[in-house]
């Protein structure tokens, strides 16, 4: 089927298969490998993207569901030359070790701060509780998110 959606700000039209997952569409067909896959079953959050501004697990979303929606991947949030404040904060505050969870974590944090700009440390931890990190223990990730609060 044909879908029409907004990809990182650009109108896009694509033919997709029924069982095609958004994570595969993003990584393999669109070459946007910033979004990662860690489990394929919604348990790790590494595949998080923004759909209509809301954080979603792209491994549990079918490409067909993107029709009429806007999709923002980590690449759409910012680049090394023009990073999103969260990306810069993650880099500057030691929130990145292996970095495989980082894109999903940044996306989830962006959603969290949009809903709750004055989130406490505990609320930040709750907001990120769907994103597993095996390297950091989460403390510096929470630090980085706190630095971006208004």
């Amino acid at each position, binding site marked *: *089927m044909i879908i029409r959606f907004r990809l990182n700000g650009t109108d896009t039209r694509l033919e997709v*298969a*029924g*069982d095609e997952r958004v994570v595969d569409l993003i990584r393999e067909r669109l070459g946007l490998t910033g979004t990662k896959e860690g489990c*394929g*079953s*919604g*348990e790790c*959050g590494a595949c*998080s993207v923004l759909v209509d501004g*809301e*954080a*979603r*697990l792209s491994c*549990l*979303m*079918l490409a*067909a*569901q993107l*029709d009429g929606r806007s999709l923002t991947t980590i690449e759409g949030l910012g680049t090394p030359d023009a990073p999103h404040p969260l990306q810069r904060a993650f880099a500057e505050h030691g929130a990145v070790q292996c970095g495989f969870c980082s894109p999903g974590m940044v996306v*989830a944090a962006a*959603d*969290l701060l949009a809903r709750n700009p004055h989130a406490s440390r505990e609320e930040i931890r*709750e*907001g*990120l*509780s*769907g*994103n597993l990190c095996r390297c950091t223990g989460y403390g510096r990730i929470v630090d980085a998110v706190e630095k971006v609060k208004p």
Partner: protein
Amino acid sequence: MIVHLPRSLGELWNLLAEAPGARVMAGGTDLLVRLRAGLDRTGTTERTGKADAATALCCLERIPELRGVDCDKGQLRIGAATPLTTILENQDVATRLPMLHAACRCLGSPLIRHQATLGGNICTASPAGDTLPALYALGAEVELATSNGTRRLPMDGFITGPGRTLLQPAELLTAVHIPLPAPNALQHYEKVGKRRALAISVASLAALLRLEGQRITEARLALGSVAPTVVRCTQVEHWLAGRPLDAETLHHAAGMVREVVRPITDVRATAAYRRIVAGNLLLRLGGHQ
């Protein structure tokens, strides 16, 4: 597999009539995981059945009649395909149904909650479904619809076993109706999991208590993950009526609860642990004194 995104119930009925084998998908957090597992994941030499393969999928996410939280005449109607995040952000739920709010809040993770739905949690009918004990304790009703009409059934009894409900072929769960308890009723919910997020419940308790002073006038107790379906402990509820809310009462009630539950041993916990904890969870109600 063909994916449909109907924009109305009418469109959905037409699609289901044309493709009777089509699966219906609300949030997809259970269905998509099962479909992925349907084709043997690790390519072992054991053949797996393809019972969960699907040829057509109808997404419910764009049907407005299935979404939304409405408060009317002492009842809350929650559309079956309303994402849990939306339910959590609803003020009526937060203030009048704090037990349901608490149950939704501990389901999965924020990411899961952005797409998971109440209807999905009910129809998946897992013995460990997080929202279910709250729905039982609140005396919820499910609204079921076909192209010909709707009917309502009490939540208690709708789920007949793990993965089994009274849903008929071509019938859809369209909403959940919850009568609002008295504002001064005590609502309590606790989930025991092996970690604090993304955890399948090991035991859970939803309790509604009406009190006059320290005396319990009415009690509703629903326990999850300790039997094939949620256990509504009616005997214990009757025994509690008229008794004071104190440690002695609760200890006795806890013992009665342990007799009533039928837990299993699985990778998460033993039956013995679940039985002990099922009773212990009642003791927490003493904290409300």
